[in-house]
């Protein structure tokens, strides 16, 4: 039990014992769902079904039901893809990178952040599939042995790298998340009264016995997986950014994209974590575990990454001017002043200006304000991808091909559907999984718990 400086704020509020933590975290799983959950789930499920309908309509009729045209061949599909992948980033960052950096405040939020990662990567993965003209041939992107002779995938294509990056990311995140869940599932198993429930959690907990050897293996696997997942935080969005950076289209062909995309992804991911946890802590009364300290930490990350993104935007403009390439210059001028100026300035306002409020301690510890900003940031990050994708290709080299894009109800419907799908998954998760990594949290109770810190202050270290 190591000592923690009194300068650091407590991470677990109230007079909690180990048993209290267990009870608090197992409660949503063991009790009946509150009315609010049912309402939220119903809405999410309807949205999900609407999305399913629109996807089936697209597959049955053709991509023509979207608003795309001969010039703008990607719009909402890839915007949504990148947006969802970006959101996914926070989970891995929190669970892996912060683990390696021994940031204890991650313990209260990593479970939900990882769940969010997995669920949003599922949404993201949908788009590259359904945006294909012939989805029934989608397996051709896999380098699998085939009967077509020596026909192989094109390893030059960033889209192929995407396939590998996303599938690797999804696999590692899921494994990492699951490993962390094992002791917690075991905790629920041990408490379960309903035999069916007990049996299910028995299977899920892989026979966890809480032995010292189990804990040792658990720690080792977590560390190894954290080591594996850390480069993924950088690689996934780097590779996603290659979709654009390796192209020849002004506004896409930008070497700054990899770091810029990664910062943006962390930015949007934290905002989404913020949105979700502010709701979860309220509904499941977990204010003691996810407290102002956590929220403030995340707001600081949002502020820093938002500023990085802002620097990237300005760098892009500078490089466009400095390059002397007229197509490049026009592409960026057109972003800011062309027909999609409103998208550009929405992006700038949401992503660069709004996080600057977080410099104020008063604002960044204000829950309502935080919630609003977290939504604003995600709107802004959606616009960022839209701006990059659509405003670059709608006016590229030859003015004869310039065009515009406007979504159809199907574009909108599929987007809404993925939001619905995401919340369906998240709400199911919140009712059946321990939403906080209680086993990990218990390790810091004696160092970062409020009453223990107070006790320490009052009585000194002995």
């Amino acid at each position, binding site marked *: 039990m190591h000592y923690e400086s009194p300068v650091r704020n407590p991470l677990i509020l109230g007079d909690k014992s180990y048993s209290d933590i267990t009870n608090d975290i197992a409660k949503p799983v063991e009790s009946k769902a509150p009315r609010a959950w049912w309402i939220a789930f119903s809405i999410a499920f309807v949205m999900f079904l609407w999305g399913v309908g629109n996807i089936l309509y697209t597959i049955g009729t053709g991509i023509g039901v979207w608003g795309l045209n001969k010039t703008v061949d990607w719009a909402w599909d890839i915007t949504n893809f990148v947006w969802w992948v970006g959101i996914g980033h926070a989970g891995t960052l929190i669970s892996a990178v912060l683990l390696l950096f021994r940031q204890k405040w991650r313990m209260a939020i990593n479970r939900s952040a990882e769940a969010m990662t997995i669920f949003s990567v599922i949404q993201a993965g949908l788009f590259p599939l359904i945006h294909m003209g012939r989805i029934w041939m989608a397996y051709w992107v896999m380098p699998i042995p085939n009967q077509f002779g020596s026909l192989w995938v094109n390893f030059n*294509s960033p889209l192929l790298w995407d396939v590998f990056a996303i599938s690797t990311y999804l696999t590692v995140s899921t494994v990492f998340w699951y490993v962390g869940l094992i002791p917690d599932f075991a905790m629920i198993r041990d408490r379960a009264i309903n035999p069916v429930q007990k049996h299910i959690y028995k299977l899920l907990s892989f026979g966890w016995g809480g032995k010292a050897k189990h804990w040792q293996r658990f720690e080792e696997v977590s560390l190894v997986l954290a080591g594996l997942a850390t480069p993924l935080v950088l690689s996934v969005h780097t590779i996603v950014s290659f979709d654009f950076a390796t192209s020849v289209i002004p506004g896409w062909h930008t070497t700054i994209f990899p770091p810029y995309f990664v910062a943006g992804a962390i930015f949007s991911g934290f905002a989404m974590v913020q949105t979700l946890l502010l709701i979860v802590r309220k509904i499941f009364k977990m204010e003691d575990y996810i407290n102002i300290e956590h929220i403030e930490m995340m707001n600081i990350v949002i502020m820093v990454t938002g500023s990085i993104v802002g620097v990237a935007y300005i760098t892009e403009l500078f490089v466009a001017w400095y390059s002397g390439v007229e197509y490049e210059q026009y592409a960026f001028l057109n972003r800011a002043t062309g027909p999609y100026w409103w998208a550009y300035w929405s992006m700038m306002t949401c992503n660069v200006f709004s996080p600057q409020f977080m410099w104020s301690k008063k604002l960044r510890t204000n829950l309502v304000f935080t919630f609003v900003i977290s939504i604003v940031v995600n709107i802004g990050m959606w616009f960022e991808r839209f701006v990059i994708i659509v405003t670059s290709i709608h006016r590229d080299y030859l003015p*004869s091909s310039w065009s515009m894009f406007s979504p159809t109800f199907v574009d909108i419907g599929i987007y809404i559907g993925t939001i619905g799908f995401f919340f369906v998954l998240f709400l199911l998760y919140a009712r059946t999984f321990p939403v906080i990594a209680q086993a990990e949290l218990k390790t810091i109770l004696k160092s970062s718990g409020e009453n223990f810190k107070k006790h320490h202050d009052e009585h000194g270290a002995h």
Partner: protein
Amino acid sequence: MTENNKYWRGIEDQSNPELAEKLAQNEFSNEISQADFLGKDELAEGETSRRDFLKFMGFSTAAATLAACEAPIVESIPYVVKPDSLTPGVPNYYASVSYDGFDFASVLVKTREGRPIKIEPNNDAPFNGATNARVQASVLSLYDGARMQSPMVDGVAASWGDAMAAARALMTENSVLVSGSVISPALKTAISKLGLRHVSVDAVSQSARVDVYESLTGRRGLPTVSLDKASTVVAVGADFLGDWGGENLMGAYAAARKPGEGMLRHIQVEAGLSLSGSNADARIKAKVSEYETVLAHIYNKVAAATGVDKIAAPAVREEIASSVDNAAMELIQAGSGALLLNGLNSVTAEKLAAKTNELLASAAFNTSTLEYTSTGSDSAFNALLSDVKAGAVDTIITLDSNVLYFSTEMAALADKVNLVSIADRADETASKAKVALPLSHYLEAWTDAIPVDGVYAVGQPTISPLFDSKSAVEIVNGLAGGSESAVDLIKASASTTAIAKTWNALLHDGFSTTPVLVVNYELSPSINLSDVTVGAAIEGIEFYTYTKAGMGAGSNANNPWVYELPDPISRLSWDNYLAMSAADAVALGVENYAQSNGAMNGNTVNITVNGTTLENVPVWIQPGQTQGSVGLAIGFGRESVGKVGNGVGVNANALLATTSTYASAEIVATEVEHGFASVQLAHTMMGRKIVNEINLPTFLHGNAAEWNETPTFETHKGPLTAFEANLWDDHDHETSHMWNMSIDLNSCTGCGACVVACSLENNVPVVGKDEVRRHRDMHWLRIDRYYSSDMNEAVAEEEGIGAIEKYAKMEVPSESPSVVFQPVMCQHCNHAPCETVCPVGATAHSREGLNHMAYNRCIGTRYCANNCPYKVRRFNWFNYQANEKFTDVNPAQDDYGRMVLNPDVTVRARGVIEKCSLCIQRIQLGKLEAKKDGRMLTDGEFTTACAQACGSGAIVFGDVNNPSSEVSHLKQEARAYHLLEEVGTQPSIFYQTKVRNRA
């Protein structure tokens, strides 16, 4: 010693050898008793009685008779004995002629397995051997299910015998035959045999012009033009690259405009921006009603210079007076190289132009060789109208003339006469006729033609009539009581025209030139201007009609290809619209504006001419349009043409008397909005070097490295070109062929023939107005059109304008723009951006410099289309062959229309990308032919569909690894450049700089 083993043939052989032996001898055990079958000694004793025998015989006879009758063939069956000339998979070509009263062309018809599938130019033909967009598209009109399928009497299908009898019953002394221009001698003979009054009237009338030459030479025809003898041409309202006369001048124009000393100088005076005006070196905006004064002004200048009396005429508008003066001065300086062309259907205007040419002794203006493709007479038609009004006409027989559509006066009088209509479909005229006789498409019919002095051409059928139709000459001859077949009539006609060729040679070539046919007409007495009065211009707004490059006079008005082809000038498809100047539009408060999805919308107006109002006519604000003058294309607004054309656009003929082409108009803006199908949203080049354009002095005296600068990159090795600063491994381009294409922007007139030819050759789907509106046109080859802008880098720098304002102003085309056309198809980049990004390798590079597209491998990510700097890749958004949204427009959804598909080219599935293949099917065929013959390919042995269709020779395709090929020479030209070379794509297509003959 061998043992004589016994082998049994079966178990029976061992167990019962006798039976086996017996069975072996009697293979067919149930032998039919011969006696039973034939009867015994007496028939009565046999089992087959005499009655039975007669029954069998009766049945057999009846069965044999029935079997001999024609049975409907439901399924196609293979030949038992293959005709010599027909090999499945190998096309046959037949020479023929295409004439629809507006376009005349000598063509080669490509047939596959007995189906005509492509119209190709007859390059050997002495007159109009080139094909324009309409002639290219006309093959699809053959497979139009809306054509009349049998003769109709009172709206009920009838046999030919009954229908001809019904038609003859309606023919009286007071019957009139109304047709367009007739150039077929055989048809003329049949018409004279018919003995009825014959009125010839054209949908696009040149009547007054023809009258001038008739009064001088005694023959109704129009002068031909030798642009090779001209050094300066001034065209007043004469869109000689479009609808002016029947002579196709594309090739001659391109040849005369070859950059260099003696390049033809072209000045166009016109109201609306035409193809000719777009290509001109200088363009003067004048109203149609000012043409006469402009011509009089030029004439007076020339008269003054040559010492002839001037004529009295109103003064030319001040704004254009000095430009017109300059044009006149240039003509005078050109001397016999001068050529003044008039496009106005007015005796005065034509006389002034002809007289000016006469005064200048123009060598380019041939009044000795006349062409006859437009010889209708307005006065004869007006006389007919008054006779009908007076009740002096009983029956009108229309011969391929939709007179109730283009003449509102006649439509109003239709009830006063009995109508007999010889037409290809139940159009606006035939649907009201008592008797309608179906006319064969030209690809099903025999015909002949004298389109111009000295040329006799024949048209032969290339397929049996699809429906129960007959050729014009056969029907008219039949009405006149004759019973000869069409081929006999044509043969007879050919023999009387004293041609030098044998019948077979004539059919093979499609034409014959013979001096016997040439009649030298001298303009004597020379043109007399004493009776000429020059009319004053219309104050306020004038309305005029014109023809579009796709629609022409409207004979293909149910053909989706002509609708889908974007207008070369406005880049709008599936519409006609009131072309209006920006100043007039501002005054009226009408606008054009883009929707959020890029689709263009506009306001509409009500336009009133001579008391007739056309409501909700969409307005298109047209740069280059003369203020105070609005134009509307004819051929649209059809009611009874078929599912494709019905209800598309408005009928411009409704506003004008049949014989006039312009009138004063009143226009009121309405609240109604109209959606356009615009394929091009931005109209200027935004200061980029996309079409490289220079003036002639720069070309002659400038440094090519300056006016055709190769983009370079600053590197540590010094400045390098995009070809040198290269990150990639190069493909091997030395071995074997390397296909390249040169596109001469100086020769390209923007006519659109290549676009239609490409669609035909490559089964490019038609997607209809709504999809084109959404910028989802599927054309593999497009012709970009750019206007100049009043704003450019130099102006911005001079006036100190910032970048944002500069670019905003650059987007606005000039009110008097210079216009350039640029055909763009897949550039077949040798470092193709599309090839690297496809995850499944569906698009790959060939060793011959082509960018291949494997449709079967494509999964439709569209990444390639995004990464294409030229935006030439097209995605199959829907299943165009089955989706019901396209039932009305896509020929591939029609049992007849499907027959036009080229069997050599895959019809692409939903969800895959497609693009120009440089007609790989033709390349493969050519290579295989050469391989079979064991020889090297020769240059020009085959070419792409676009290059073949290009009447001006702007597109040249070939192998640059063949040092003697034309394209390899063109690649060395100083004018050659690659589009967007700085992107480093190393295209196989290159362009030739456009040169304008101006200082």
